[in-house]
């Protein structure tokens, strides 16, 4: 019952985020409806950084405790983070086409997001080919910690070498409300996805353990 209530809450928050972006936020004067991409772009961009940091934390805790639960958390964060990073690039590119007249610009923040996406992809690809779960966890943890060191560079690169990317654009109060609703709604939704994947990995591990015990 608690699970169903949780799922309903996630659905309500997600629908609220979409409705706020579509109807509550006013149409921007220069970009028109294309500006509404911001209400998706910012939440997914925020979540991909959050997922990357979660991967780093899970990696560190795994190396300290050697408990595969943390590696399952790592894998769930990596998969949802990869999805969000890809969505950040796609929505950012669509927005850039309307705002700057080009699909892509080597702006520091765009470049760093692309690097993060490449690291996410590399880590997932490398892990997928390793059979031993503890070795897989160790490789993922080391790579994620190295990758997490790249995250502060997103901030540093933008602050030091401010490119075309807007840092804190002007927004009306209703735009701010729509953005905040989007950040909350999408964050809860992606956390829900990550939790589902985590539980699936735990169950999978449980089945494998059971099989090992029956065979051994």
């Amino acid at each position: 019952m608690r699970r169903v209530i949780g799922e309903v809450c996630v659905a309500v928050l997600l629908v609220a985020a979409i409705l706020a972006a579509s109807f509550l936020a006013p149409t921007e004067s220069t970009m028109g409806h294309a500006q509404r991409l911001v209400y998706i772009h910012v939440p997914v961009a925020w979540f991909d950084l959050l997922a990357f940091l979660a991967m780093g934390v899970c990696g560190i805790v795994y190396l300290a405790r050697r408990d595969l639960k943390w590696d399952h958390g790592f894998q769930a964060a990596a998969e949802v983070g990869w999805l969000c990073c890809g969505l950040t690039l796609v929505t950012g590119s669509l927005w850039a086409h309307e705002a700057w007249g080009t699909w892509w610009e080597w702006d520091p923040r765009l470049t760093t997001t692309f690097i993060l996406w490449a690291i996410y992809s590399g880590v997932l690809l490398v892990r997928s080919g390793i059979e031993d779960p503890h070795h897989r966890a160790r490789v993922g943890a080391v790579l994620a910690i190295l990758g997490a060191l790249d995250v502060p560079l997103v901030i540093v690169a933008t602050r030091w070498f401010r490119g075309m990317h807007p840092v804190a654009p002007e927004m009306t109060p209703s735009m701010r409300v729509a953005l905040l609703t989007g950040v909350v709604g999408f964050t809860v939704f992606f956390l829900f996805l990550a939790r589902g994947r985590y539980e699936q990995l735990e169950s999978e591990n449980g089945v494998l353990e059971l099989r090992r015990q029956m065979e051994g």
Partner: protein
Amino acid sequence: MTRVAKISACWREWPERRESLRRMAGFWWIVHKDLVSEFRSRRVWPAMLLLGIVVALLFSIQMNLLPEQKRQILGGLLWLSVFFAGTSLFDRSFALEREDGCQGALQLLPVGPGTVFLAKLTVNALALLALEGLLIPLFFILSDLSLGAHAGPLLLIAVLASPAPAAVGTLVSGLAVGQGRGGLLVLVVLPLAVPVLLAAAECTRLALESRLDEVWWRWLQLLGAFAVIFVAAGVLLFEYVIED
């Protein structure tokens, strides 16, 4: 302080000094072993240097541009060639340790994993510097630009740009030992090293345009920061990399 007190203080500090001396000796032993092994077998460096030359030539074929345009793109192409050829080095860095239980012997050394990492990193950084020493003049010759006026800044950029990719490559190479995943792990090295590539390319472009101003200095600081962060991370993480 009396002479007796001095001798007594020195005696008390002796275990720590002995420990640091042992680490330094272990460090030099591994560096020496790897350099001698490479000098005798010539298995890694010649292939890396040749790959660098070939990539540089292929890039230069496309550089039928005005001198100003060449100055703008030379940095990017140069560092791309260095990093691309460097991946062949990282791929092989720990591969030799697989033979005859060398890795096990390396782990038995009473020096700690951090020292082993620093020694391996030093050898890889030296290899990258050798590659840069070859490719920088080569690119200038092929693009018909003067190297003499920019030699100082370029040397500084080369010294600062080498440790970070070498550190990442050494760590990743250690992860790949015995897994047959070297090719795939290179996929991770390049994205991790891209920020260094961008900073080095930007620094080189500004140096070639004789704009050694505050912006150049910032990019240079970023290169230094990358070097410190990745070398420190490598020293801390290497223990987990070679534990098998």
